[in-house]
């Protein structure tokens, strides 16, 4: 970056040291099937899946283990053949380490595919809705990390009438190289998946955005896409968070997504390149999403590289396969270093959205004491959505969440640029996460209060009605009695007069 540029340009984002190589250049290794797999029922955005198998049941690879529950949810399939050992709790791949419901599958070692898989030789001849159905049946979710159910995204894009399919090959997070590797090794499959997605969404063309620090991937994808006029490969400048939806769409199409809206608002839908591969596998081969390529990297990993791991494998097994740990890691992270979650321990499973497992040494994690904000506004300059992290964090510190929302807290995409550049080492993202969590909890409390208020009102109404009915009955009885008495009196009087 030239001197003049450094002084005068208003640039968003950061240029972190990427640590991608040598892991990106090492050939992919396929992890042998572990003895037990732990399939979290909540490995996608939305409602957890509902188990469709019983304990003790034998399953084959690719058979459905759990059904989606509700509109935003995804099915889960068996990554290998074996027996359901239990349905119980396991530590979630989440900083809290709180338990999550999981299906525990004992592998039988034969790894037999189910013979009920629906293959298709001419998927472009299928109805777009049928493609969506098969993608849903395969339990495909967004592989970039957000894990939004892909079928839902395909069908809603079609309804919204999107015109452009943006394929995210940015992979801007440092350390991670699984998308890079996938594009180098399986460009043909990815392009096939992209063309299926074009068909399913009704979009006219697809743009594959790849950061220019992956020349091999760009070359491979260009070669594979050359045969198709509607798929273009575009190198984009390497800069974090280029892979974020809003930034990617703006860079590739020049369109700015309105706050709070989906990319569909500007006629765009964004999918990850890994998702395209999963879609192709699901539709052509009928194979559900049961394993994925992920990067094992970080200063404490003996042999960094990309590993094909079954969904449900424990993190410690994956690391052990990748050569194990040297030294003592300062942090164990699932996902990238900028937005990934720190794990409490390694006995937690790989899920569909796990793009990487990082064992970072102390220098890489850079865990330093928080100092006072000097208002240097480095964070504001780094922020890709141009909120003022320093001001928002001040308000959160002072418990003024309302003020924080007014300053744009809800626009924050939690990319971590602000905390990355902060010279005072203020955990800005933690402040924002805390505030967002607290606000969500308050929302839930408010909704519950609304619901219970209705219940209470219904109850007092019921009590009032019961009291009223009781009173009416009593009044009727009394009236009847009086009438009877009067009748009797009249009778006796009549009798007397008679």
């Amino acid at each position: 970056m030239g001197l003049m540029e450094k002084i005068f340009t208003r640039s968003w984002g950061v240029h972190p040291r990427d640590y991608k190589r040598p892991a990106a250049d090492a050939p992919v290794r396929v992890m042998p099937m572990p003895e037990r797999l732990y399939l979290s029922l909540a490995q996608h955005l939305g409602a957890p899946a509902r188990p469709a198998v019983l304990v003790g049941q034998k399953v084959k690879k690719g058979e459905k283990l759990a059904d989606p529950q509700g509109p935003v949810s995804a099915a889960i399939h068996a990554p290998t053949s074996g027996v359901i050992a239990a349905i119980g709790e396991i530590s979630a791949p989440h900083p809290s380490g709180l338990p999550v419901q999981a299906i525990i599958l004992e592998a039988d070692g034969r790894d037999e595919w189910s013979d009920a898989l629906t293959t298709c030789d001419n998927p472009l001849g299928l109805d777009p809705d049928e493609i969506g159905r098969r993608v849903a049946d395969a339990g495909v979710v967004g592989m970039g990390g957000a894990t939004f159910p892909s079928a839902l995204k395909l069908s809603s894009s079609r309804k919204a009438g999107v015109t452009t399919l943006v394929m995210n090959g940015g992979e801007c997070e440092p350390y991670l190289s699984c998308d890079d590797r996938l594009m180098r090794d399986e460009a043909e499959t990815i392009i096939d998946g992209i063309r299926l997605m074009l068909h399913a969404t009704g979009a006219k063309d697809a743009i594959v955005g790849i950061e220019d620090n992956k020349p091999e991937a760009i070359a491979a994808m260009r070669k594979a896409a050359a045969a198709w006029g509607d798929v273009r490969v575009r190198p984009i400048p390497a800069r974090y968070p280029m892979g974020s939806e809003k930034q990617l769409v703006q860079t590739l199409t020049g369109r700015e997504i309105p706050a709070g809206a989906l990319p569909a608002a500007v006629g765009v839908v964004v999918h990850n390149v890994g998702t395209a591969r999963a879609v192709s596998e699901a539709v052509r081969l009928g194979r559900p999403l049961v394993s994925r390529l992920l990067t094992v990297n970080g200063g404490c990993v003996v042999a960094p590289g990309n590993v094909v791991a079954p969904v449900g494998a424990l993190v410690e097994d994956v690391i052990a396969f990748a050569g194990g740990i040297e030294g003592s890691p300062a942090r164990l992270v699932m996902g990238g270093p900028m937005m990934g979650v720190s794990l409490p321990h390694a006995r937690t499973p790989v899920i569909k959205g796990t793009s990487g497992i990082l064992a970072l040494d102390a220098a890489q994690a850079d865990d330093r004491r928080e100092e006072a904000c000097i208002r240097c506004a480095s964070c504001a300059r780094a922020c890709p959505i141009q909120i003022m992290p320093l001001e928002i964090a001040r308000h959160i510190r002072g418990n003024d969440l309302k003020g924080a929302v007014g300053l744009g807290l809800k626009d924050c995409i939690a990319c971590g640029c602000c905390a990355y550049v902060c010279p005072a080492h203020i955990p800005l993202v933690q402040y924002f996460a805390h505030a967002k969590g607290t606000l969500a909890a308050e929302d839930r409390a408010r909704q519950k209060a609304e619901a219970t208020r209705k219940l209470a009102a219904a109850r007092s109404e019921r009590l009032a009605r019961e009291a009223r009915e009781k009173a009416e009955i009593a009044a009727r009885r009394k009236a009847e009695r009086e009438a009877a008495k009067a009748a009797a009196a009249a009778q006796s009087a009549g009798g007397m007069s008679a």
Partner: protein
Amino acid sequence: MNADAYHAARIFAAPHAHGGGEIRRTMLRVQLALAPATLFGFWLYGWPAFFLWLLTLFFAQVFEVMSLRLTGNAGQVGFLGDGSALLTGWLLAMTLPPWSPWWIGALGAFIAIVVAKQVFGGLGQNVFNPAMAARVALLVSFPLQLTAWVVPLPLSGLDAPGFLDGLRITLGQIPVPDAMTSASLLGYAKTELSRGLGLAQALAAGHAPQLSWLGVRAGSMGESSALLILAGGIFLLATGVIRWQAPLGVLAGTLVPALIAHAVAPETCLDAASHLLSGALMLGAFFIATDYVTSPATGTGRLVFGLGVGLLTWIIRTLGGYPEGVAFAVLFMNALAPLIDRGIRPRILGRTRSGQPIRNAGK
């Protein structure tokens, strides 16, 4: 070690990486940028200037550590701390008459560190620039001492005081001889104007603005050499410690009215070069108005802030009762900074300036 032996020490929030920036390094860079002008000042004004500088820094640090002890925040970063108190002391020393007695430096350090900074909660919490608050408080309280500028010694016929004499001057045991003091250019112009003399006549006698570039003239260390201060500022710009908005604003805020006024009334208004090169304007533009803590946080805000400082400086110098106005201007704009920050915010991506989601113009 095996992965299953790992247990997180606590809950870590993302990101799990850091760019490596440090407050201490930023402070160090600013100090580095001040060094050339300061060394030149030592050469120009001799030992007393050095002692005053040393004492001011010393007292600033002592008061900083004392305050941190009292508020229970001490000992976290060692005696030298984050270097912010040293920087404040340094900036204050740069604006004081170099032969001031020691207690001016000590009192100034007290006002800067304790009253203007630690009382507000320490680093990053103050709303007024500590060095400028101290400078204004001193000027208002001790106008005599604060305007006793010595003539630079290398050019004067008088002998420079030696180490011991210098120490005694700083300790106030030897009064500064009248023959060695002189008004600064701005002060001189103001006095002459009030005596009814025109500037052309007044400035003919010895005050040559060209000397300002070299800085060989009466004044504080911070105004001695505009050239060296400018070099320091460019160093800060190049290392990304400061950005261009505030300095440009200050320089333009003074330059534009000075050019116009001098063209209209050359007898009563100083020329632009004198304005830019005299007093604390250069120091203010590159080292004071760029103070992160007390200036607005946005680029546009900093430009507005700088323009305000520059314009007010010119107004006070030209129309006001004080010959120099940078410190007052900075304090006044410091007070306005929260309002500027409320008024000028960057447009959030996907929203209009008023905060509403944008319409789908791109579709």
